[in-house]
């Protein structure tokens, strides 16, 4: 019924059997090659959604379908970049990436796997650090190894849980640029959690805004209408930037709580698709019924 690469339908999760669900009725779709960021306050279940997509956690209800197959458990089709980088300290940088490569292609020779791993280490700009142990690397470098490891298995989809949350602003910018470059080169489909509004605007084609938990849901899908060629240095000169930014901040400060207070049963229980970047008035605010995935227009529209 829909052509989205990844479809999530009516996902919900409750941790106590009789308690309120953390999130409820979460439905969305992600197209191939799309970069999606999800923003919401702590406790709205972003990480749980990501873990469900990764197959590390089972939902209480609902289904996830990727590439026409239901997601039931972890798979090499979905690479995960963990917030805490999760590098194995007993392996070198190369060892960490080779470990992933050899898991993906067990019949490859050691030299072939190493060559493949080196390519991705070069890609994240860590050439020369291959033989270092993770403990000898800075936070930014560790996170890059995590990204290289996730990319090296050439997954159909990349899942990132606040990958830059622990980095300082300068390092964060450098690694973001690196990621943007790689993603546009490989047309990687990405689902990423972030708390950083600017990061979302820079990286994402679509930004999912979640209302507060419990009973959180995806309240709005913000389509990033800024040109694909945007860069960190110049994007704040684009008038669209502040319109999108204000929209996102307003949501986080006011609307995320109001939507929760209104309750999931209210008539507002819809996912809005908005394009705040376009000039006032041009932004159509067409409410669509859930599952919203049915009605997603192309991001480029």
């Amino acid at each position: 019924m829909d052509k989205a690469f990844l479809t999530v339908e009516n996902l919900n999760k409750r941790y106590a059997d009789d308690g309120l669900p953390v999130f409820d009725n979460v439905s969305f779709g992600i197209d191939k090659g799309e970069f999606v960021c999800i923003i919401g306050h702590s406790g709205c279940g972003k990480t749980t959604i990501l873990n469900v997509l990764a197959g590390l956690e089972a939902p209480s209800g609902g289904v996830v379908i990727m590439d026409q197959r239901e997601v039931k458990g972890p798979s090499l089709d979905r690479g995960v970049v963990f917030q805490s980088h999760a590098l194995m300290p007993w392996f070198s940088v190369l060892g960490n990436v080779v470990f992933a490569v050899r898991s993906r292609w067990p019949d490859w020779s050691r030299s072939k796997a190493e060559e493949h791993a080196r390519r991705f280490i070069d890609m994240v700009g860590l050439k020369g650090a291959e033989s270092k142990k993770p403990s000898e690397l800075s936070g930014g470098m560790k996170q890059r190894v995590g990204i290289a490891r996730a990319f090296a298995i050439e997954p159909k989809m990349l899942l990132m849980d606040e990958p830059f949350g622990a980095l300082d602003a300068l390092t964060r910018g450098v690694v973001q640029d690196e990621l943007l470059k790689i993603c546009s080169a490989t047309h990687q489909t990405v689902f990423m959690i972030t708390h950083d509004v600017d990061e979302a605007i820079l990286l994402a084609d679509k930004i999912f805004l979640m209302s507060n938990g419990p009973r959180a849901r995806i309240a709005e899908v913000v389509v990033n209408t800024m040109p694909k060629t945007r860069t960190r240095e110049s994007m704040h000169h684009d008038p669209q930037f502040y319109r999108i930014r204000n929209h996102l901040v307003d949501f986080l400060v006011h609307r995320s709580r109001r939507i929760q207070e209104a309750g999931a049963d209210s008539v507002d229980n819809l996912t809005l698709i908005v394009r705040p970047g376009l000039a006032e008035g041009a932004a159509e605010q067409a409410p669509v019924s859930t599952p919203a995935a049915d009605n997603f227009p192309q991001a480029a529209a």
Partner: protein
Amino acid sequence: MKPTHIGWRAACISLAIFACLLLVWHLATAPKAGSESARAGVSAGAPADDEYARLMGKSSSSPVKTSGFPGLAQMGETMRKELANPFYDNGPNDKGIGIQLGYSLARVGLGFAIAAVVAIPLGFLLGMSPLMQRALNPFIQILKPISPLAWMPLALYTIKDSSISGIFVIFICSVWPMLMNTAFGVASVRRDWLNVAKTLEVTPLRKAFLVILPAAAPTILTGMRISMGIAWLVIVAAEMLVGGTGIGYFVWNEWNNLSLTSVIFAILVIGVTGMLLDLVFARLQKLVTYTE
């Protein structure tokens, strides 16, 4: 600069303490004080003493009376003799210290190796499966506090071989710390690393050897180090009981010979060997420790 400075000062103090100990020993065993008091006080008992001495094959008119506890000179003489030829073998009751030490090390090594072969896989099972952990916990909790020597009669009766019984006792005392530490180390492997292995669909065998084993290795090595320490404590007592060979038997045999210098020498050898064993495991521990 500072650490070496502190190292030198510590070495100086150690040497000073060592010198003091030797001095105290020397003064306590010096013949002068003992012979004077003997001459002054016990003239009445002298004939009987003489007779006893003659019975024991010693001359009653020995010029110096000692307290019986060997002095530094005697000690040095024994050490020189033992170390000059540590591997001589003049029959079951007269073997060199090197041979006796070799027997003990072989027993400890064998018992310890068997314990490792049993404890580490079993520890993996306990660490990975909360069910097995709970099921086996009562047995472990009851068996763990039993003194390994308490197993000796049972071992001797069933195995009917004193040497193997010794190895069994080493096995039973080494197995618990290794088992507990392996189980704990495996159970507390960081969730993140297991999640990485999960998302990479790593096969169970690769996961065990490339993720869990290296992650738990420092904890496992700690267990092995504790086990080795206990095994070395127990082997001396075990060999005193079963007799025949080994450093523990050597101590007991020399006590029966009333050769205190040999006993003291053996004690020193036991201490130095124990320290070296611990050093080996400390080195291994350093090898597998990782910094995050």
